[in-house]
């Protein structure tokens, strides 16, 4: 697997979030640390994606996230770099929308999730992309994720729509299923590979 940074143009990866002074140990090229925020409509499966990734669990009973949950997970890439994800799993409820900047401020990665069975959630995802383009870090890595891929019989958002939109906006696109664990690790590995590497000094 190629490990070269796919974003060579970006010079300084701002890896630590704001207000994160005590966590901002000097990142070296081998041990990255990045703040990742998940955004998307309520009920699209953001928490399920995170819990599948961090704990390998899937709980079909829906638990509405309040505010935002914080979890972290470290993965090792084949080139022996490790990436520690500090994940902000935000609530999709409308009342928290105004507070989203609190969580995406300083984020190096934004994962925007929609539900492939819900066109409304795809529209909401586009709203978040625009919001981040306006107010997010300029060098933020963005991923567009169509979740609930196991429910392909009820699909209402064609794969191609996701691909097209992601391409137009310079995003990485993948369809996942937190239920079957399909593409979950791939999502985070791909993100890790796309992270800007700090220039070695």
């Amino acid at each position: 697997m190629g490990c070269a940074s796919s974003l060579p143009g970006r010079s300084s990866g701002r890896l630590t979030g704001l207000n994160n002074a005590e966590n901002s140990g000097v990142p070296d090229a081998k041990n990255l640390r990045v703040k990742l925020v998940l955004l998307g409509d309520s009920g699209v499966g953001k928490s399920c994606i995170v819990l599948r990734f961090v704990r390998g669990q899937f709980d079909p009973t829906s638990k509405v996230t309040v505010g935002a949950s914080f979890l972290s997970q470290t993965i090792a890439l084949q080139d022996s770099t490790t990436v520690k994800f500090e994940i902000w799993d935000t609530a999709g409820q409308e009342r928290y929308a105004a507070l989203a900047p609190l969580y995406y401020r300083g984020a190096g990665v934004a994962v925007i999730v929609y539900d492939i069975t819900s066109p409304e959630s795809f529209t909401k995802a586009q709203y978040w992309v625009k919001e981040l383009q306006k107010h997010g870090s300029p060098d933020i890595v963005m991923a567009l994720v169509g979740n609930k891929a196991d429910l392909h019989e009820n699909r209402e958002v064609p794969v191609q729509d996701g691909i097209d939109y992601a391409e137009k906006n310079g995003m990485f696109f993948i369809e996942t299923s937190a239920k079957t664990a399909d593409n979950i690790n791939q999502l985070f590995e791909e993100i890790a590979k796309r992270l800007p590497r700090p220039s070695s000094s």
Partner: protein
Amino acid sequence: MSLDSSSSSSSGDEYIEENPNSNPKMVDERFEVLTLTEPVELESNHMGDGSDIVNGSLNRERNGGDEDDDRLQVENQEIFGEEGPSSPSSSGYAGERGSSSATSASRVDEASEIDDNEIREVRNDGSLEGISDSQASSWVPGKRHVDEDDASISWRKRKKHFFILSNSGKPIYSRYGDEHKLAGFSATLQAIISFVENGGDRVKLVKAGKHQVVFLVKGPIYLVCISCTEEPFESLKGQLELIYGQMILILTKSINRCFEKNPKFDMTPLLGGTDVVFSSLIHSFSWNPATFLHAYTCLPLAYATRQAAGAILQDVADSGVLFAILMCKHKVISLVGAQKASLHPDDMLLLSNFVMSSESFRTSESFSPICLPRYNPMAFLYAYVHFLDVDTYLMLLTTSSDAFYHLKDCRIRIEMVLLKSNVLSEVQRSMIDGGMRVEDLPIDPLPRFGSSPHLGHQRPPTDSPERPREPFIGIGGPAGLWHFIYRSIYLDQYVSSEFSPPLNSPRQQKRLYRAYQRLFASMHDKGIGPHKTQFRRDENYVLLCWVTQDFELYAAFDPLADKALAIKTCNRVCQWVKDVENEIFLQGASPFSW
């Protein structure tokens, strides 16, 4: 002390049992037993309450008088309404029997739809009763019966409805049924409220048969409760206040501005996913005394253990945390407020309800905006929430939106100290050991010093004659104390004894809860109260209430309990509480009285 006072409430004429003690003079003497130990508190203030209640009972058959009569009637019904174990459920329908006269004169057409006929149907409907029973024993979180609306018979039969709506009549929340389908019903409620408001008045309560419709107006937000549970008006109003507070906790009062901008503003999306929070709060109206006592309760812990927890919380509070609260379920382990910051018991109730009912807090550490309505209803605070184990959770509140990493560090420090000083294992042990049990009420005052066992539990080698062990007799035979609640006014805290036999079933416990609720309301009734003591007897219990400047004691006894012995027992309970106060209350660092 006047004679009236002591008969205050014995009002024996309503009761089957003719207790020789209801002889006023004797009763008076009995009370002096109590008076001897606490002379100050028991003086005076009994004027006329007894006669008021008698008036109330005379008014009993009268329905639809003016507002004041209603209030008295509520009082009266609450006091005499519950008709014993034969009633199918603890709440509600007991008083329906033979009350067809009450169908008269419902003042509002809408309300008359739900009249006695329907209630009788319910009484004959075993399945519905089944529902209420199962709710009592194994409560399932979340909203039920979403498929219902006001056209559903099952919806109309629900004993207690709660609604939140906007002043333009838009539904915001309904306990049962889908809010959107209830738009018409909501508009009707709004019409009633605004009709009265247009007349320069305000509707508080409408009585229709056995149903009470209670209204609460909070700016652009209207809250309505429709209930046939026979709870006092003041209790239902208090519950509406708490529901409003829960909404403010989630959204802040600045929500009012949305209605200023757009009167037709639809608030339901803003409350998305909070059904569990409201249904859990409403459920607590039938088991958690904090909802009417306006006090909180602590997990019993050795003084040193609680001190250790308080010390580390104080440590982080000094580093810019507004409130640090460590709780186990709905009980406080310790809490600390930054200087000058005070936390209202109602805010604690709403906050812990919010945290415990939202499953996502258990999954991982969280950082969420919340508002404490009694602290500042206009502003969000930020709450760092982390469950240390399945029941124990830490809440760190701050005004700073970017303090997460600092609070996370605080939590790590706190958790380490709590583990090292065994606080968490002590908490687990206390959960298993439980709280005060009436069986353990000491016969003699405990020694003040020396190693005291958990809550002064005395385990005599042989059963003393005063404490027969038969399952249906509590302590002291005829004086049989079954249960008590002690509320310390100064500390804003209460302690409630564990449920002991014969209060085994959830139904019995809920009935006692409602009885306490009525007792509390009647003691604090501004019209005929406040009272200092009250002694009442019905088929279910003898209830004794004693209010002083320092505390309120609510005690339930065997219905055959002797009054003099009951009073004596209450004195012993108070002494017992004083003996173990360092274990059952959070002492000293009360954030409520800086």
